[in-house]
């Protein structure tokens, strides 16, 4: 059974360690905040200029001056801080954020990522994604393993314009957890009920399978 978006987020949350500063991208990555393990304190960075993102505001308490990078209203936790965009990306570019989670259209077995543009169809801009992938110490991609018509999104080469090269460290898809190594995609875990063969068929890039591949634990 392929994972739901919530389950992808839940699995990624297990990558969080106490004291981590984390940037969560728009979409599935944002959901990761709902699954932070007990006893683990992480501080969420938003590239529009804050540390310490809290839950969404209570009814009637939304503040137009307090939004996340997805333009959603949020709150700030005790110990949080606000700063300008150049300071915010200084933090990101300087490698001070421990973990970055973002979505992708395609990822290659060399760690290249395409996530911002579909020529002729979508011209929204890269926002902060290129800065994030170029500088993050540790990048986890949350994505669907295949497109709706079954085409693999874990490729040898991206077909879409790149966001960054050789940067993705780990992928959590609806089918698998995969490390991006010097040799290619290294399969770490399977989604419950999904076989190695299912994953092999859904992966166009080089897939390395060594030994027994365990099912994900939730």
């Amino acid at each position, binding site marked *: 059974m392929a994972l739901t978006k919530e389950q992808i987020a839940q699995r990624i949350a297990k990558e969080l360690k106490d004291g981590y500063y984390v940037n969560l991208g728009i979409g599935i990555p944002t959901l990761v905040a709902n699954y932070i393990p007990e006893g683990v304190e992480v501080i969420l960075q938003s590239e529009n200029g804050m540390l310490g993102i809290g839950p*969404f*505001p*209570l009814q009637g308490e939304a503040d*137009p001056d307090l*939004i996340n990078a997805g333009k959603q209203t949020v709150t700030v936790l005790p110990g949080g801080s606000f700063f300008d965009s*150049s300071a915010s990306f200084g933090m*990101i570019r300087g490698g001070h954020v421990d973990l970055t989670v973002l979505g992708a259209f395609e990822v290659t077995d060399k760690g290249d990522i395409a996530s911002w543009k579909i020529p002729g169809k979508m011209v929204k801009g890269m926002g902060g994604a290129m800065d994030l992938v*170029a500088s993050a110490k540790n990048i986890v991609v949350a994505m669907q393993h295949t497109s709706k018509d079954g085409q693999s999104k874990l490729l040898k080469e991206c077909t879409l314009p790149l966001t960054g090269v050789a940067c993705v460290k780990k992928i959590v898809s609806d089918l698998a957890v995969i490390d991006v190594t010097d040799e290619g995609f290294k399969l770490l875990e399977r989604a419950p009920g999904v076989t190695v063969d299912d994953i092999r068929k859904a992966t166009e890039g080089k897939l390395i399978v060594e030994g027994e591949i365990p099912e994900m634990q939730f």
Partner: protein
Amino acid sequence: MNKVVKDAQEAIAGIKDGMTLMVGGFGLSGIPENCITALVESGIKDLTCISNNAGVDDFGLGLLLQKRQVKKMISSYVGENAEFERQLLAGELEVDLIPQGTLAERCRAGGAGIPAFYVPAGYGTEVADNKEVRVFNGKPHLLEYGMVADFAIVKAWKGDTHGNLIYRNTANNFNQPMATAGKITIAEVEELVPAGTLDPNMIHTPGIYVQRIFQGKNYEKRIERKTER
């Protein structure tokens, strides 16, 4: 020394067709609403606007786009504006898309007299086209240039008569770096106070960067994506 002007109309005096403007804000948060309205009313056209986003169809910089006053946008993300996308695909609008951190740093560098600097963002992507690549510490970087504008237009929470500014929460965003990079910087504030009122340790933008300041009115502060528990 007198930096205080009456209103947005007086503040934008001297902005002419074809000029380059920096406009603060992220999405609709922290945008200089009063000055944007005054620009729309002025009919000034062929503007190059450096702004992280392009507003929405009927608010923020979207209002300038609607009236076709913008020749070129320099932004990182314009996804919330359908009119923008239409003009772009129809070839009616020039667009330069720049990674957000590079955009912010180019403003900061422009204000700080740094003509150029190297960053890793965009290497290996189409952003790198025609850019100088140089390897530092084994990692390829792109040469990027500091940017200045004829006018920088920013919005702050509080300001004083010397031009000192304090922003509130995430409404700071691009306002602070852009305030440093205008040949003339205009600040509109929610509350204008006499010099000496603000704590000198808590100034985000020192008054040296601000040439004109006024207290704005009727702030709508529209929320793009109200999300509540």
